[in-house]
């Protein structure tokens, strides 16, 4: 199973976490347009490959861990906190 390196607790099993989806979507400000809110709520790149996503450590420190994981191989490239800038390997073109 996925082994997620929580910056506060260390490497833990995926069972300790609640997935919270695409971490590249930024919640728009209050005065944002309807289109910007639609994009935030509904539009997803849904890559077959490297994906930056949230795993909420509900069974541990309850912090939000940002993870760069491959949705095809389940390999994890990097884990960090919400403010960390994580490198993302390039996705191969094609299906």
């Amino acid at each position, binding site marked *: 199973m996925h082994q997620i390196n929580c910056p506060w607790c260390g490497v833990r099993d995926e069972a300790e976490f609640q997935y919270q989806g695409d971490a590249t979507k930024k919640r728009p400000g209050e005065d944002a347009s309807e289109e910007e809110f639609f994009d935030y709520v509904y539009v997803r790149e849904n890559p077959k490959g490297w994906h930056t*996503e949230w795993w909420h450590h509900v069974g541990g420190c309850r912090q939000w861990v940002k993870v760069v994981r491959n949705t095809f191989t389940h390999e994890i490239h990097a884990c960090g906190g919400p403010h960390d800038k994580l490198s993302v390997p390039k996705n191969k073109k094609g299906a």
Partner: protein
Amino acid sequence: MKYSALSVLWQGLTGHKGWARAWRDPEPKPEYDVIIIGGGGHGLSTAYYLAKEHGVTNVAVLEKGWIGGGNVGRNTTIVRSNYMLPSNTHFYEKSMQLWEGLEQDFNFNAMVSQRGVINLFHSDPQRDAFARRGNAMRMAGIDAELLSPQQLKEMVPILDFENARFPIQGGLIQRRGGTVRHDAVAWGYARGADMRGVDIIQNCEVTNIRVEGGKVVGVDTNRGSFNAKKVGMAVAGHTSKIAQMAGIDDLPVESHVLQAFVSEGIKPLIDTVVTFGAGHFYISQSDKGGLVYGGDLDGYNSYAQRGNLPMMEHVMAGGMAIMPAIGRVRMLRHWGGIMDMSFDGSPFICKTPIKNLYLNGGWCYGGFKATPASGWCFAHTIAQDRPHALNEGFTIERFREGRMIDEKGVGPNPWIQ
């Protein structure tokens, strides 16, 4: 050739040397009236109904692997039409009616077994919610019945009725629901489409969708480029990727893994379909004796076609909670599929902003039971360039328009849908 008892008898007497290929393996033509991307249940069903209902036979189904190798080959075989929201109720009932006549229609044994589908409930409020759904079904002319614990005991005696956490207080049954042999569905539709002139092209992966002046003109593949007057996308888990090839990059879809399991073969234990919604578990028994069961999504984006141990253990725990008798049965096989989860749990069968390009997807984990009606409606939508009444709600625009079809009522969170 037509399959019949006579053909089986004759072939048996003459050494079984006369069976013809079930479908051809033709070289693709440079141009088609319609290209369907995706040779799964829905793509093949669409091609079948295009040919049979609309006389559109200059069609190619392009499949990147082998037909039926995707989700139609990996599901838990359940068919039912016990939905509550109007857009879903009538659509799935159309599918149920097509299932009932399918084997005679496409001359193939799909083992359509209307053994009933039971949804267990464990509390008064849950009973009321299920009664509401049952009444919604009956108002639409669909069969639904509330079963008492006593009736359930007669039908499924090995359930643990006195379970402390989930006491079984009854169930909602749709007696016309049941199971269908999923591989046979792909093969039956493939054979039926092929015999009417549809080209089924396997090992043919689409790499680009060509759009000119806002209209689709063809596709590029690893077996060459083909022109088409119309293109229909029916690729389930890869919906986002295929749509992005045509420049459609704003779909509310996430691809997630759903696991399914089969046990070793045992003597007949369950002769119906039991779903334990509260515990995320559903089970039936195949004619070979294996228990066929599954649960919920693992809960993270995945195209891997396999899941992980936490959900496996959760599914087994769900099964143990209501039928501990299966505890010593061994799990024999497990696999995963790629579910294109839409943000309201309901599908797309619609036109797209690109002229003559059509979308069939967003089936989440419920696509198998929809296979006949999905193909039937998608064929109509493609042939007539407009949806049928049964699929007119299944649009991409519904999210912008506030017309979500959210059966579970949980909102735009794909791994909860």
